[in-house]
C-alpha cells in the first residue's frame, strides 16, 4: 500500500509537467486558431523551456532563486497531496505558500514593473483564495471530512450537489493561469504595460522553473475540477478540459480589466454563487 502511494506520487511528479506542457501547447494553438492564426507547434512550450534552461544564469539577488524553488516545490507538492487524497486545507495552504514565495521574489527586486506586478499578484491571491476556501468548506459539508479521499467514497459525483462551484472554479482558473480579463499581475504570454509584471526580473533557467511550476499548477487545477466528477474518469477529464476550454474562450473574447473589477467580480459574484450553493446544499441536506 505504501509502495503504491509512493509510486503514484512519483508518477504524478514525472508526468504532470509533460501533460501540463502539452496542454499549454494546445492552449497556444487553440488561441492562435481563434485569432485566425496558424499558431506555434504543439511542442512549443517544451522548446521554450529547454531554451530557457540553456540560457545564461543572470540573477538579480540570491533570494530570487530561493523563491522560485519554493514556488516550484509547493506547486509540485500540492499536486502530490491531491493525488494522494490528503487534507484539502493543507493543500490550500501549500498552494498559497508557493504563490507568496513567488510574490516575495518579485518584491525582492527594485524594478517598478516587478514591484507593481507583485502587488497585483497579492490582490489576485486575495481574490481567489476565499473562493477556494468556500469550495473546501462545501466539500466538507457534503462529505463530513476535509480529506480529498473522502470524496471518493461518495456515491454521487460532487457536481450534482455543487454545480455553482464549477463556475467559481473557472474564475479561479482564469486568475491563477493569468488569463484575460484577470491577467493583471503579468499576462501569461503577451507583454503589457508592466512588461511581464511579476515575472519581469526572472530570466533564463529561473523562468524555465517558473514555466514548469505553471504546468504543475495547470494539472493540479484540472485535477481539482476532475474531483467534482470522481465516479467516471472520462467524465471528470471532460469536465476539467471543458472548464479549461471555457477559460481559453473567455481569454480570447475579453480584454484585461482592473484589479477593482476583479475583486468585485470574484467577491460579489464568486462568493455569492458559492454561498447560494452552500445554502441550497444546507436546505437539501437538512443539516
Amino acid at each position, binding site marked *: 500500500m505504501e509502495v503504491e502511494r509512493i509510486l503514484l506520487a512519483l508518477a504524478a511528479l514525472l508526468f504532470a509537467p509533460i501533460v501540463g506542457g502539452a496542454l499549454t501547447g494546445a492552449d*497556444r494553438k487553440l488561441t*492562435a486558431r481563434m*485569432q*485566425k*492564426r*496558424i*499558431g*506555434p*507547434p504543439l511542442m*512549443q512550450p*517544451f*522548446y*521554450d523551456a*529547454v*531554451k530557457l534552461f*540553456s*540560457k*545564461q*544564469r*543572470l540573477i538579480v539577488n540570491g533570494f530570487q532563486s530561493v523563491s522560485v524553488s519554493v514556488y516550484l516545490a509547493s506547486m509540485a507538492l500540492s499536486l502530490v497531496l491531491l493525488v494522494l487524497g490528503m487534507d484539502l486545507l493543507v493543500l490550500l495552504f501549500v498552494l498559497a505558500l508557493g504563490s507568496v514565495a513567488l510574490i516575495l521574489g518579485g518584491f525582492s527586486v527594485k524594478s517598478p514593473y516587478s514591484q507593481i506586478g507583485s502587488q497585483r499578484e497579492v490582490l489576485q491571491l486575495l481574490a481567489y483564495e476565499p473562493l477556494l476556501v468556500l469550495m473546501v468548506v462545501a466539500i466538507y459539508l457534503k462529505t463530513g471530512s476535509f480529506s480529498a479521499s473522502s470524496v471518493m467514497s461518495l456515491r454521487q459525483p460532487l457536481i450534482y450537489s455543487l454545480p455553482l462551484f464549477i463556475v467559481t472554479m473557472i474564475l479561479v482558473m482564469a486568475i491563477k493561469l493569468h488569463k484575460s480579463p484577470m491577467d493583471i499581475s503579468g499576462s501569461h*504570454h503577451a*507583454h503589457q504595460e508592466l*512588461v*511581464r509584471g511579476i*515575472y*519581469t*526580473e*526572472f*530570466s*533564463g533557467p529561473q*523562468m524555465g522553473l517558473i514555466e514548469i511550476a505553471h504546468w504543475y499548477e495547470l494539472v493540479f487545477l484540472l485535477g481539482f475540477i476532475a474531483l467534482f466528477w470522481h465516479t467516471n474518469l472520462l467524465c471528470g477529464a471532460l469536465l476539467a478540459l471543458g472548464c479549461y476550454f471555457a477559460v481559453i474562450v473567455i481569454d480570447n473574447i475579453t480584454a484585461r480589466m482592473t484589479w477593482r473589477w476583479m475583486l468585485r467580480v470574484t467577491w460579489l459574484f464568486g462568493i455569492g454563487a458559492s454561498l447560494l450553493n452552500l445554502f441550497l446544499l444546507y436546505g437539501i441536506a437538512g443539516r
Partner: protein
Amino acid sequence: MFNFVHKCRKKSPWIVHFDAGACNGCDIEVLACLTPVYDVERFGIINVGNPKHADVLVVTGTCNRRNARVLRNLYEQMPEPRAVVAVGACALSGGIFHECYNVLKGVDGILPVDVYVPGCAPRPEAIAEGVLMAMERVEQRSREPHSQMQAEPAEREERR
C-alpha cells in the same frame, strides 16, 4: 542532446524591439510580423518586450550618441546566447541621416550585429527571416566558440 538544445533555441527566438529614433516605418513592419497575417508565433517568435527574457535584439532607426548607451544597456541585460538584428537602412548605415553630425553610422558601431535586414522599410517576411537567421548565427557561433567576433569587421568593410 547538444543538437536538441540547438533545435529548441532555433525554434524559440524571443525578441525585444528597440526603436533608436526611426521614422516608425520599420517599427510598423516589425509589429506587422506579429499580426495574424504574418503570424511569426508559428516559428516560436514572441515579442517579449523585456531584455531579460529576449534572445534577439531587433534594432530599428538611426543610432545617435544619446541612445547608444540605452541600446548598450539593453544588450547588456540580455542573457547569453543573444543576437542582434539591424532592421532597415537607418539601422544598417544611418540611412538618409548618414551625414548628420549626431548620427553614429549604423548599429554595428555599437553592438556586434549578426544579421542585417536592408530596406526602407523592409518587408515583414524579411524581418521574420532575419530573426530566424540570427538564431542560426548563434548556433554557428556556439559550435566554434573561438571565432566569435572575427566575422564581424570583415563583413562590415565589405558592406561599406
